[in-house]
Each structure stands twice: as structure tokens, then as C-alpha cells.
């Protein structure tokens, strides 16, 4: 990569919501005024100390932040066994799976719900894939007494029954979406359509760093609490910055949250792990940066899985949370700059990592961070023993035990 890097990679997006050529506001006119309203409201909230204090209060006392930074000693020792002498980096987990609701999603949801209230919106809609974002949104809506409608692909409703029931217990309405392949992409289409029809009173709480500006920047800002904490905690634990960060990428919100505070630290390498499904050389994967090309979908320009005619392809991953044919625009930019390395792990590798982590660390990871862990298992043995990796354990695996059992041929 010979391109000179800008002075800071933490300035984006520009006034048009672009990260380099990516991002933007590609929405129908009906939504445009509302998108601009969200942008204005968020700009004001960002600078409002009372807003920030209320969000921080919720993070501390409701979510349980800061989440611990855990030295995965047994995993580290296990990986060193197979490594050459003197090799095998220390592996830390940033334990966002311990958050209330079991994943990182709640960080940005609470910020957005506070924003919605500030904007005077009286109902909330959200899309969800694995159901984690839906559960987080339903949770926040219960807390703030707001009606909540969650759009979820009918296929995902089937494979994530526990989360569907959870959302209903929390008082949310779950709308199964049957268009397209009935997964996350279609849920997002339907949420956007519903929003267009209910612009006056409704706030759309997007779960990832995608969608039209200002969503990618706003969700990243809220999720950056992950990286800010990790940075501080690592200084405390090791007295220095980590050498590598690893996070799973679907839309990319947990990765953006971990990476963003470190983007200008040149010594910190970053790895975003895409879902390779049944392999990136098959047609069944969700590796948009590895195998896609730039296009426009869901309000932003980014890397997309698409055919030669610009029709969007269906993604595949064992993890419903990574089953998306696009990726946040900031990732697309960091990919082209070469600042972050985008790699991938297959369904089978994630399943193996899922089981290994459960046995070695007593932590059942969600299938999403199991992809990140699968890459850690490859990368750590290739790094000297005095190097340090931080992996984002962005969700817990309770929701996935049925899927995993089925893949292992176990009947529950």
C-alpha cells in the first residue's frame, strides 16, 4: 500500500457523510428530510454534556460497563503449544458479551433511544438479524416505555426462536419479513419502507455502522466506548498498547467500536474477520470486502456482494448476525486505505472456535465473535510470545446453542 495515510483517520466522515468515496445519503426524497433531522439532532446531542452524562449513567448502572478485559490464559497456553518456540501472542478478550442483553448492541441502542426521545419521537423501529439488536432495542424501549416494532427476516425468526420470544417478553412486536431471502437485508428494506410510511412519529434505530449518514458515524461513536475502555484497560494490564485487534465483521459495529480509538496508533495492527460461510470460493459466504465490490444499498456506498448487473446477492453465514451482503462504509474506506486487514473464517472454523473457547475459558461465545476467535487461533501462534492481541468478545452464545447443537448433530 503506497498511498499516504491522512494525518488522522479519526476525522471522518466529511460533511456529506463520506469516508473517502464511501458512505453518503442514498435515500428516497421522503426520507431525506428526516435523515437531515437525525443528523442535526445527533450533532446537538453529541455536544450536550447532559445527554452524554445520561448515556454514561445508563452504561454504568444498566449495562454494567466497563466490561472487563480478560487475559485468556488457558487459550494463550493452548495456542502456544502448537506454536514454534518463543511464539504465541498473549490473547485478551474484551468482554462485551457480559453486557446486559448479552452483546455490544445495547451501547448504541441506548444512545439512539435517548436521541429519539430528545427528538420527540414516540415509537421505535429496528431491524435485526440474529436478534441481538432487536433484543437490545426491545429492552431499551421497555425501559423508556416506548412502543417497539422489530423487523426480522422470516428465515431468521425460525433460526433464532429464543430471541424472538425474548423480544416479545420485553413487549416488542416482531414482524417477520418474507420478501427476498427473508434475512437481515430484507428486514432492513422493510424497516426502511415502514419508516417512510411513519416518518412523523417514528425513529429508526439501526443496529450497525451502515445505512445513510449519520448512522455509520453515530453508531460508531457510541460503540467506541469499547475501544476507549480497552485502551485504558490494556495500559493498566500491560503498560502499553496492544499489537493487534481482532473483531468479527457483519455490518461491522463491534469492530468499528474497538478499532476507532486506535486508528491513529500505527503500531496497532487490526484484523476484521468476515464470515466465509462454506468458503469464499463457494457462493455461500458473507465476505463483502473479500469478494464484493463497491455499490449502493441501504443508503450508503460500500462494498457489496452483487452480481455483474448490480443485483444484490444473498449472503450466507452460520451466524445470523454476519449474514449481510454489505458492510459499514468506514470499513470499506479502511480496507481501501489498507489500515485494517480484512480476513475471513468459515462456518466450520467458527464452530471449532466456539467449542474450544467454551472448554478452555468457560466462555460460550456467540457465533459472531467465534469467527474472530477462529482468526485469533491462526494469528496468535504466528506472533512472538511478547505480543498482545485484543479480541472483541462482542456477544455471548446462549442464543446460538440450538444452531450449534444442530450442526453437531445433537438433538436438544
Amino acid at each position: 500500500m503506497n498511498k499516504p495515510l491522512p494525518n488522522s483517520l479519526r476525522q471522518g466522515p466529511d460533511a456529506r457523510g463520506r469516508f473517502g468515496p464511501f458512505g453518503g445519503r442514498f435515500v428516497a426524497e421522503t426520507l431525506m428530510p428526516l435523515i437531515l433531522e437525525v443528523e442535526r439532532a445527533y450533532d446537538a446531542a453529541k455536544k450536550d454534556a447532559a445527554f452524554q452524562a445520561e448515556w454514561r449513567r445508563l452504561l454504568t448502572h444498566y449495562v454494567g460497563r466497563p466490561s472487563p478485559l480478560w487475559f485468556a490464559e488457558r487459550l494463550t497456553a493452548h495456542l502456544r503449544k502448537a506454536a514454534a518456540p518463543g511464539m504465541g501472542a498473549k490473547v485478551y478478550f474484551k468482554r462485551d458479551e457480559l453486557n446486559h442483553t448479552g452483546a455490544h448492541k445495547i451501547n448504541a441502542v441506548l444512545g439512539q433511544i435517548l436521541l429519539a426521545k430528545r427528538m420527540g419521537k414516540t415509537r421505535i423501529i429496528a431491524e435485526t438479524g440474529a436478534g441481538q439488536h432487536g433484543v437490545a432495542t426491545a429492552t431499551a424501549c421497555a425501559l423508556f416505555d416506548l412502543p417497539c416494532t422489530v423487523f426480522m427476516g422470516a428465515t431468521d425468526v425460525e433460526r433464532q426462536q429464543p430471541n424472538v420470544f425474548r423480544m416479545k417478553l420485553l413487549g416488542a412486536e416482531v414482524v417477520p419479513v418474507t420478501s427476498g431471502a427473508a434475512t437481515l437485508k430484507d428486514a432492513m428494506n422493510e424497516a426502511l419502507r415502514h419508516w417512510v410510511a411513519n416518518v412523523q412519529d417514528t425513529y429508526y434505530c439501526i443496529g450497525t455502522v451502515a445505512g445513510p449518514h449519520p448512522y455509520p458515524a453515530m453508531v460508531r461513536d457510541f460503540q467506541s466506548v469499547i475501544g476507549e475502555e480497552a485502551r485504558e484497560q490494556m495500559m493498566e494490564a500491560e503498560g502499553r498498547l496492544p499489537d493487534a485487534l481482532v473483531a468479527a465483521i457483519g455490518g461491522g459495529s463491534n469492530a468499528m467500536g474497538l478499532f476507532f480509538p486506535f486508528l491513529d496508533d500505527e503500531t496497532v495492527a487490526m484484523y476484521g474477520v468476515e464470515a466465509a460461510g462454506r468458503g469464499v470460493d463457494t457462493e455461500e459466504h458473507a465476505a463483502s470486502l473479500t469478494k464484493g465490490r463497491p455499490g449502493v444499498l441501504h443508503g450508503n456506498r460500500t462494498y457489496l456482494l452483487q452480481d455483474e448487473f448490480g443485483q444484490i446477492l444473498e449472503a450466507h453465514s452460520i451466524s445470523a448476525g454476519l449474514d449481510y451482503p454489505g458492510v459499514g462504509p468506514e470499513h470499506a474506506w479502511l480496507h481501501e486505505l489498507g489500515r485494517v486487514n480484512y480476513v475471513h473464517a468459515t462456518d466450520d472454523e467458527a464452530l471449532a472456535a466456539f467449542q474450544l473457547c467454551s472448554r478452555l475459558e468457560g466462555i460460550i461465545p456467540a457465533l459472531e465473535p467465534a469467527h474472530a476467535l477462529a482468526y485469533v487461533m491462526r494469528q496468535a501462534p504466528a506472533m512472538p510470545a511478547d505480543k498482545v492481541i485484543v479480541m472483541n468478545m462482542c456477544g455471548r452464545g446462549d442464543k446460538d446453542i440450538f444452531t450449534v447443537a444442530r450442526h453437531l448433530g445433537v438433538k436438544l
Partner: protein
Amino acid sequence: MSRIAARFAALKQEGRKAFIPFLEAYDPDPATSMALLRGFPRAGADLIEIGVPFTDPMADGPTVQRAGQRALKAGATLAGTLAMVRDFRREDDATPIILMGYYNPILSYGVERFCTDAAASGVDGLIIVDVPPEEADEVEPAARANGLDLIRLVAPTTDEERLPRVLAATTGFVYYVAITGITGTRSATTEALAAAIPRVRRHTALPIAIGFGVRTPEQAAEAARIADGAVVASALIDTLAANLDEQGRAKPDAVRKVLDQVRELAEAVHAVTAPA
């Protein structure tokens, strides 16, 4: 003068309003949609809108979504859509054709190449739903260089502050989206339209057509009375969809039934008279 400007000028001179039917290219197969396209002008279409199928039509309701899925299954592409227009132009050089679709297939084709080919094929205007004025520089230079009108959507949510900006980026005519919502769902009230159209008129001299939720001859006539034209899409697609067999093929009289409906709608619109 572009075909669109010429057509609206001629209508104005005759004191008539424009009827603009819509069809989804390749729905349910290329031959049927070509037969509809050819039949539209004789059935009373003043301008024609052709939908370009896309896997993820964000602004469309179930009717147009399903039409797009049928079309994609039948092999629809942007190039195939342009070929339909070329075929149509062999026998009709006057009826303006507007392509309506989403940005990604155009991006994939290449914006400049697309504008060149579209103009050469006889396309007159573009409605790219997910390219708002804020992103207009993506397509404006190439569209302008090729003489293609960029028709913009104005919605009930487009406020006073925003209207001049949206209209400044518009050529050909203004497409007023009657409802805050997706295509083929609900309809606007006469009162809402009667208040909205003069608001737009204050900012532009361009003709205004009303679409989204215009389904019946009565509604089309109403839209024509208040504005300069009416667009009907989902109601026509519903008729086509109701005349497909179990395998999704068009029944023998499907085209005739849609054209009969076009005729009925066109007559209602043309019965509205305006001062010349």
C-alpha cells in the same frame, strides 16, 4: 426541445393533462412487457414510465416488489430494458419514456456509459429513487451531457426550506409523491393534494405529475385536476398479476386487460379540461 418538454407543451396547448402509466420491464417476461409498452400509447398514454427491476426496491410496496422479482427471474437487466426502449422507438418517436429505478444497477453498468446508451436508445428521463439532490453530482453531469431529464421526487416531507433545492435539481417534470409511504399502499386525500401542489407550484414552472396511491380513474382524474398529470403503477401491475397462470405466465388476455385499464384511466384523465 426534449420529448418530455414537447409533450407537456403540446398537452398544455390542447388544455389537456398527462396520463402516465407504468410497467416493470420484463414482468412477467420480455414479450409481455414489450406488448404492454407498444400498446400503451394507443391506449392513451401521454408519457410512459418503465421500472428497472432491482433486488432491493426500498421505496416500493409488495406489488412492485413482486413485479421486480418476476422480472429478475425472467432475466431482466438494465441492458435488456434499454433494448426494449430501442425496439419501441422504431415505431414511436414521440411518446416520452422515463426509466425509474435504483442506483446500484446503474452504477454497476457505469454511470456515463449508461447515460450515453440510454439516450441513444431513446430514453428521455430518469428517476433514480435513491439518489437525492444531495448526491446529484453522481449522475447529473452525465445525464445533462446526454440530454436526459432528471426527474425528482418531491414528497409531503419535503419542507419549504428544501423545496427550492430539490426543484433546482429537477428537469422535465416534477414527480409529486402523494403520500409519505411506499408505492401501492394508501392514497392521498384530495384536500392534502389540493394544498400540496400549489405549494410546489410556487417554486417551479415545470409540470407536476402525481404518483403513489393513484389507482382508480376517479383518483387519476382528481390528480389531473390538481396537477398536470397522473402516474398509475401498482393498480396496473395488480391487474397483470391477477392474470398470470399458476406457473406465473401471462394468460392470453392479460395484455388486453391491462391495456383496457390504461384506456379507462387515460379517458378519465383526458376528460379533465384546463385552460389552454
